[in-house]
């Protein structure tokens, strides 16, 4: 196995495209576990952290461009990003321990393509877009279209994600992400739910995106859940409809982390709770 730490996107693309069994290293919190357990045996590891700009959070068109090597801890320390997309920041902040937070990245969480990735439902709810570079140049792809199934992504050979873009936050909008785990920390999500919504002056929902994690082979954007609350004030009835839509949309499996029934039910519970937080944020309440 070889190790390279290129200084430019071009060098990185050349290295990745020129070698079968090449893996990208950003935070490394998934890659090194796989390496250690002999799940993968790379020929080449390309550390992208020394590429200019990948460790930066930059303002762009009213939104934020987050470099592929920005860690969860760095996101949590960025006041502007926290103010606009607290749900995404919290979701990233739920990945692993404090130690893992020092390294783990949004891009890595996305490319690992785990159905249970915490940041992905939050990014999907936020309408995030991944910027992908590769031998054919640069392209932008909605985050929801990046994972294709467990461990599978839409990235071609030689391609990697160089940044994630979170769009400008609309007025009177807010986002939130909640997950369920058996302990209070250190677990993989049994169910995750990200919600982004906007309210009018009468607190009626004008726009909403609801995404579920860990209840299907990849993140699920639940259109029916968004429809269930649009044009409504988030009262008990609306929240119940939201929860029901999420439970219905979930297509989970039984495994060591949870059962089908549990996941379906809790998908609704989390959606309801996350919606309340997102709505409070949209109203400007401290939450």
């Amino acid at each position: 196995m070889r190790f390279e730490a290129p200084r430019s996107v071009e060098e990185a693309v050349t290295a990745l495209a020129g070698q079968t069994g090449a893996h990208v290293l950003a935070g490394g919190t998934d890659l090194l576990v796989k390496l250690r357990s002999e799940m993968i045996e790379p020929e080449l590891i390309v550390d992208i952290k020394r590429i200019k700009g990948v460790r930066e959070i930059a303002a762009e068109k009213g939104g934020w461009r987050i470099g592929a090597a920005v860690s969860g801890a760095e996101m949590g320390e960025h006041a502007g990003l926290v103010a606009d997309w607290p749900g995404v920041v919290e979701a990233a902040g739920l990945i692993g321990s404090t130690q893992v937070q020092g390294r783990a990245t949004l891009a890595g969480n996305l490319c690992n393509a785990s159905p249970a990735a915490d940041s992905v439902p939050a990014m999907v709810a936020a309408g995030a877009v991944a910027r992908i570079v590769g031998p054919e140049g640069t392209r932008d792809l909605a985050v929801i279209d990046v994972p294709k199934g467990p461990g599978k992504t839409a990235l071609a050979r030689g391609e990697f994600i160089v940044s994630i873009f979170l769009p400008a936050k609309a007025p009177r909008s807010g986002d939130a992400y909640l997950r369920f785990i058996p302990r209070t920390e250190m677990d993989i999500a049994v169910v995750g739910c990200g919600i982004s919504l906007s309210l009018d002056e009468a607190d009626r929902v004008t726009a909403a995106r609801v995404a579920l994690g860990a209840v299907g082979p990849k993140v699920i954007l639940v259109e029916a859940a968004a429809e269930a609350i649009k044009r409504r004030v988030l009262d008990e009835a609306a929240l119940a409809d939201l929860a029901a839509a999420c439970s219905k949309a979930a297509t989970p499996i039984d495994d060591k982390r949870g059962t089908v029934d549990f996941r379906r039910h809790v998908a609704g519970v989390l959606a309801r709770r996350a919606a309340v937080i997102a709505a409070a944020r949209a109203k400007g309440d401290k939450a």
Partner: protein
Amino acid sequence: MALDDSNKTRVFKVVGTRPDRPDGIDKVTGRARFGADMVAPGMLTGRILRSPHAHARILRIDASKAEALPGVKAVVTRADFGDVPDHVADIMENCMAGEKALYDGHAIAAVAAISPAVARQALRLIEVEYDVLPHVTDVDEAMKPDAPVLHEGRQQETVPPGMSQNVIARSEFGHGDIEAGLKQADRVLERTYRTAATHQGYIEPHACLATMSADGQGDLWVCTQGHYMVRNTCAAILGLEQGQLRVTASEIGGGFGGKTTVFLEPVALMLAKKSGRPVKMVMSRSEVLRATGPTSSTSIDVKIGMRKDGKITAAYAELRYQGGAWPGSPVNMGAMSGFAPYDLENVKTVGWDVVTNRPKAAAYRAPGAPMAAFAIESAIDELAKGFGLDPLAVRLMNGADEGTKSSYGPTYPAIGLKATLEAAHKHPHWTAPLGKNQGRGVACGFWFNFGGDTCVSLNVTPDGTVTVSEGNPDIGGSRASMTMMAAEELGIPYDQVRTIIADTGSLGQNEVTDGSRVTFAVGLATIEAARSAKREMCRRAAMIWGIDEQAVEWEDGAARPAGPNAGKFPPMTIKEIAAVASNTGGPIAGHHEVTAEGAGVSFATHMVDVEVDPDTGATKILRYTVFQDAGKAVHPSYVEGQFQGGAVQGIGWALNEEYIYGEDGILQNAGFLDYRIPVASDLPMIDTVILEIPNPGHPYGVRGVGETSIVPPLAAVANAVSEAAGVRMTQLPMSPPRVLAAIQAGG
């Protein structure tokens, strides 16, 4: 000097204080050397190939390609060991499979190579041909007559005919007449409880470094709870003389019973022997979970009759414990301990020892007792609450006391159960208000506590300071306790004594650090060693003074003339006596070798408040208080630490920890990600109340404290969760899916 000191009136100077532990600085600076921290020149890396099958016949092992790989210095399979004595045959089988692989992770072969990478590659080159057999991992399934059989011919004569060969033994304990007792009850509760297998979960994986010379001399550095056990077991397996194998215990990063046997050690010695080089072996976490440790999973039927005033009229339990792939689950201890807190006229327990295709159960803190307590304390709680009675009052009404004939036979001397219950009853925790979705649970627990072979050597240096050598690895501050007891007995300051853990060449046989024995037994031997040194120092002073040695007494670190000579000479301090030791007969030492018997039993009552989220089934521990009898707390901080640590391990067992096997018999959660031990944010502070009912079998009244604390929490948490959720939980772990399903089914 008699053992039975008047310890009730004794005023201690050092014992009962909280000095800094002697190994503290090493452990906060990273200097302390644990199992994996040792190196030797020319050292090789040893690694083990493990079975990917739960149950398979090993048809052929071809290691020729691995042996041919450059950098590979030795390959070992079972064939290298030959026949071993009967008493270590099962241990040998567990360390290296013979004819069959009996569980996922069972060791099949091992290599020693010049680097971890070469060793890894070599393992892949070993070809093993398996005939995969049907497997069974569940205890109730394994008892069925048509279950796949692990061993033929191991069933004991206690098992009725016609049962599966997986049922190894049946045992029965108790007294009185259950049927007659049940007739006097106003209610008879019958329930079946189940608990999952859990792992000791020590943070330090097993590790050792072995060297072995052609002349049969070996050295082993190892993290273990008992290096004398390692020596004796390895010597038996490898056909060595015990005296030729020197084992040195590293610092040990937790054990909780899981390091009371060997796994890697005989293999490392064999690799070292074949390669002629030192071999270091360190397990990965996944190996630790797949192939060491766990405790039994259990299935327990309880039948208890209670009068409406709370009096238990009859108590019966049938306990089925699977102990993994070989006989020896801790079911007997469960069957003997479960009803031990109670004074019962009619009590009976039946225990079944069952084998399954899982790793061999190792001891885990009060082996067998927590599961039995979970079942029995849950049933008592349900009955008490059903009658609208105070569950603490019901336990007090039925509680065992001095003179009670215990459920396992003996009559109790002075014991502390009722003291723990009374302390719990008057503690503010008991009457604190509870909120919505919250519940409070209590439970009692019992443990026997052990003694065993123990040696301590105490030397007075020429400057009058003292070294204590003992043979039990310090797993949680025992060096401090020994130092304190030596200082107490000698009447000198704590900082004048240093305690070390000696290797197997330096002391006689020592039982492993288990059974909560160390502070009791090693403490007892330390005190006796100090007393023997004191007698010698009194004799030296008498020589100097020219008086009869009977007329000298020891007080506050000095020999003083007593009786008719009192005041005739100024006292001689330990330093003054030591300074002239060469002139009065030579170096001064005391030693004591004993099979310590007479460990006092110990009881605890735990109280816990929880909140259950009715929408997700998640449980939050809000408040926790441990009430336990310590006999005499030598170093109260470390006694509290034992209470707190045991409680939290029990909380993990109650809520989230479990071995999860797939249909294929493969362990699905062999890592700390999905084997979920409690993390800091899961818990509140764990309050402790230390009761001190002296053990008459120890000079200072000490009782073991390490194990009892894990016995009550499973039931205490279950009783609290059941109250909070409004539905009785009878299966562990009470993971959120299980609690939510129970709420939904019950509501």
